[in-house]
């Protein structure tokens, strides 16, 4: 019984984390760069 449960977990795990399942990227996968923030330029002398 234990073996069966372990096997099931393994199969499920593989299915969920399989690299071919790139569902996420189809939407807005990427953050397109860090630095969404607007910080402006350095403070100049004078």
């Amino acid at each position, binding site marked *: 019984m234990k073996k069966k449960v372990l096997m099931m977990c393994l199969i499920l795990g593989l299915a969920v984390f399989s690299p071919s399942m790139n569902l996420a990227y*189809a939407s807005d996968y*990427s953050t397109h760069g860090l630095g*969404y923030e*607007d*910080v*402006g330029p*350095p*403070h*100049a*002398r004078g």
Partner: protein
Amino acid sequence: MHIGSRIRRLRESRGLSQKEASSGIISTSHYSNIESGRFEPSSDVLGLLADRLDVPVSYFQKIHEDDPLLQTLLTQYEELLASDIKAIPQFIEKHHKRFSYISSIHQEIMFHLLKYTELVKVGRIPDAQAHYSSEVAHIPQAFFENASRSLLEKYTYTSGVYYYFKKDYKASMTHFEDALLLTIEEPLSAKINYNISLALYKLYDYGAAHVYAKRAKEQYLHMHNWGRSGDCYNLIAALYLAQHKPTEARRYIEKGFSVLGSPMSETHGRLYHNLATVMMKENDYALALKTVNQCIDLKKLLKCTTLFDSQLLKLRILFRLGDLLALRENITRLQVSIQNELEQANLDYFEAKLYHALGEYDLYEQKMKNCIVHLHENEDWNALKDAARHLSLHYETNKKYKNAFKLQELCIEAYRRLTMELKGGEEK
């Protein structure tokens, strides 16, 4: 720095060989020894060389002596930078002859540092960078070991700004740290603390950046400089945003708005931009859209240089909202205002993703490839890693593993270059 280095720079700028510069005056080997500083030329030779290089002979004399009258003019120039920047062209024109060939090496450097600051303050960053590269960058660091505190402090500060715009943030931070040790004025120390924080933010060292930003904020508040205090609140908010802490970011944005009051300034525009980002992180896309629109309107009104960044943020929000029609409309509208290749590449990225969402994969591949080429050419590694990864995953899904592999390699290359930038670019 000696007379020889000044003669060499002049000769090179005139496009002359050592032989051409010295023929009929002295032997080429003697001339070469003068340029390298091994021989001190006589005043007769200096006169003839000045004639050959088409400069007044005074430019080759008293190079280690400061001219008191010129010193007064340089002080006036520095004061105008703080009080009345618009009056500077007229001031320079009036004293054109005095500023043309400055004998004292110290005063000449001082003049160029002030000129750089002037160009930065009027927003002519590419001109400023070119000016520093041609007039200041060649000076060996060792020269400044004997310079006055005032010159050294100006040099380290200005170099900090130069390297910041050059995107060498490590060098920028090092110079600002040196400047901080040399400064005795609180207004200047506040600015340096702010700039160090900014450089650390670019180096992703958020913890240290917080320390400097908060120090700068306290100093500006103490001086009742509300505009600069607003900048500090905005920077701290940006740091929290980068650390994925939108609640804290919002708190600082609100403080920023309250300390700034009215009328509207560029800092208001930045605060609106960051507020929209906070809202996006909190998944309130409708409100984020309203805020980014406010931000764009204000930035247009004030002709802010970061307008395009906010327009990209709007595209990001529309993407999250799933409003593909509005996204297409906005992309088309932005196409006409594109200023350079990098902006085009960033826009291509969104257009490619739009095609992807619409299932138009051929157009998607074409746009994304185009975008990647331009991001690579313009060395935007941060955006490149995302674009390359996106296209790689697309190829992988379609079982085009060879293409996917190539793009993953490009992605790794982008990460490598990013790491190099963090280290100060030593592997270049």
